[in-house]
């Protein structure tokens, strides 16, 4: 097992290097850079920019260096100083711009993941075991609605409904008096009061999908020979269900954690904008639109690393629960 984990960790190194290069190339791809956008804006507002000033700015931001030199400087600073560069737009270090936001985003993401699993898996199991029962149909119906309705629409509806009934604006993660304040007990309580809204909204679509997946996976497993074997041994139905088919139906779900993590973080951008949450989605969108390359690049890098870590976690979990993976290939 340790051997397996070590192996997987070593494999990550070249992967991460490749990802960082690709990201850097991608953020360099669009014509122009932050400066051209910036100068354009200045010119549009009527300010003339002379050539020496442009050169000056280019030098200041290191944009006069060749691309690969820029890449190495960026990487060096990240690895040795935990410095992701400066955001042109915010005129602040990237870490400062997104530090808090990443934390909050992760919090919402993890809560959503837990919410999704806790709701979806039991319902999926019920739907599979009592296939074509009345509740199976009801859950299926609700599930399809959840799948079909866009998240941001649910967000708008909830925000409107709550406001209409209580007069409370539940957008944002904190009550107005805590915004911009340092962390305190009150701020945490205020956050916990409001965090369920994005968690439920972000989780809904995932829940609907996961119910369908769980149901399908379990239906597949229920008809398998080993279930009949266990029944033929005289094992009680409920015990049998949890020991064999459910255990095996969970496997493919575990392997999806890897891509759920970044999807939860990037996929909820519109919801976050609608709800005005201080999370990463809106910032990423903005950075991409303004060619704020270090901010955008760092974002993409962090998202990629999260994907890789997510995949690693799900691989390790899979190896832990499924001996075929644990022993497969590694023994040779």
């Amino acid at each position, binding site marked *: 097992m340790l051997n397996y984990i070590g192996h997987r960790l070593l494999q990550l190194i070249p992967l991460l290097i490749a990802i960082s290069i690709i990201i850097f190339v991608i953020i360099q791809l669009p014509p122009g850079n932050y400066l051209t956008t910036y100068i354009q804006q200045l010119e549009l507002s009527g300010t003339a920019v002379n050539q020496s000033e442009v050169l000056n700015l280019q030098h200041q931001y290191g944009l006069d260096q060749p691309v690969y030199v820029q890449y190495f400087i960026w990487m060096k600073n990240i690895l040795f100083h935990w410095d992701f560069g400066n955001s042109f737009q915010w005129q602040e270090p990237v870490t400062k711009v997104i530090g808090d936001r990443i934390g909050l985003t992760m919090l919402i993401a993890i809560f959503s993941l837990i919410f999704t699993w806790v709701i979806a898996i039991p319902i999926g199991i019920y739907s599979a075991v009592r296939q074509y029962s009345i509740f199976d149909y009801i859950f299926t119906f609700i599930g399809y609605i959840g799948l079909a309705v866009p998240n941001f629409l649910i967000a708008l509806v909830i925000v409107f409904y709550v406001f209409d009934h209580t007069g409370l604006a539940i957008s944002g993660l904190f009550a107005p008096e805590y915004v911009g304040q340092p962390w305190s007990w009150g701020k945490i309580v205020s956050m916990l009061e409001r965090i369920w809204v994005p968690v439920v909204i972000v989780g809904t679509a995932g829940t609907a999908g996961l119910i369908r997946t769980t149901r399908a996976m379990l239906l597949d497993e229920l008809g398998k020979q080993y279930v*009949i074997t*266990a*029944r033929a*041994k*005289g*094992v009680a139905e409920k015990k049998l269900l949890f020991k064999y088919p459910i*255990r095996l139906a969970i496997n493919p779900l575990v392997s999806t954690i890897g891509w759920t993590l970044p999807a939860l973080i990037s996929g909820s951008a519109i919801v976050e904008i609608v709800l005005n949450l201080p999370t990463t989605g809106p910032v990423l969108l903005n950075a991409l639109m303004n060619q704020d390359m270090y901010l955008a690049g760092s974002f993409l890098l962090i998202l990629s690393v999260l994907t890789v870590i997510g995949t690693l976690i799900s691989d390790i979990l899979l190896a832990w*629960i*499924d001996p075929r993976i644990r022993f497969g290939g590694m023994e040779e």
Partner: protein
Amino acid sequence: MISDEQTILEVKDLKIHFKLHEGLLKAVDGVDLSLRKKETLGIVGESGSGKSVTTQSILRIIPQTAHLEGEIILRSEETGKNINLATLPMNGKEIRKIRGGEISMIFQEPMKAFSPVHTIGNQMMETVLLHRTKDKNEAKEIVLQSLREVGMSNPEQRFDEYPHQLSGGMRQRAMIAMALASNPAILIADEPTTALDVTLQAQVLELMNNLKEKTGTSIIFITHDLGVIAEMSDNVAVMYLGQVMEYTDVDTLFHGAKHPYTLALLKSMPSVGAAENKRLEAIEGNVPTPINLPKGCRFFSRCKLAQDGVCNVQDIPLVKIEDGHYVRCVLVDEKNRGGR
């Protein structure tokens, strides 16, 4: 079929029907079987003949949607009473005590029949803990002993291994060990050698015969391979489309079979002594789906001797020809009556 005090299991007029959109599927339609102590009953037939459903219904592990009629009487050795398995509540306590306890089962593909994510030991312990003892150490001893009896090398190591780590033959041995670990009175083997190569087949069959000698377990052996029947069985039931076509002892089957279907099966079997360049006689066509079957003989559509107006008029009964030899065919019936 005769039943005496040696009879341990008796199936009477068993019917298993499935309601489908297309109509009523009669998977098993009036099957009678009887199994005596220490006897091996072979059930032979093509795919779709209902042989697996019949035996699975004995353990009541057929789908809940199935409609089951008839009697399945087990003469319990533990209690000495007759239990009608057909009327026990599905998945209830009584039937679960019999499953894997007094009657246990071996399946066709050991790779699929074992859970891939639990060790062999874990899965075998489950049976033993349910039916033999509550003590874990004792249970482990029983499991290891059982693995030893089926000729498993290194049982202590195998105990902690997963099914995919064993070879095909070893897996089937483990399956047999698991079935026998609970000391069953009856062992149902559903094509246990079909998924194995020929050398392993021979080994597994020999193993089963040896274990039967040793433990005195009665065996119901399902196969489509007449060669295996010859090796294993005392009595044989030939099944076709959910009915027993012929029931006899194994010698009569190979040397005095009467039913056209049995004869056709025998002709379709390759033999070493046969003349070269002689084509095997296959039975034309496939087993039809048993939905909305016409009246008359089930084999009518494929039988070479079929006579319109004779064979397809009414359902054919299973008739006793000699002691222990039963045939379901009008033509054989008439011939015999005419001859006497």
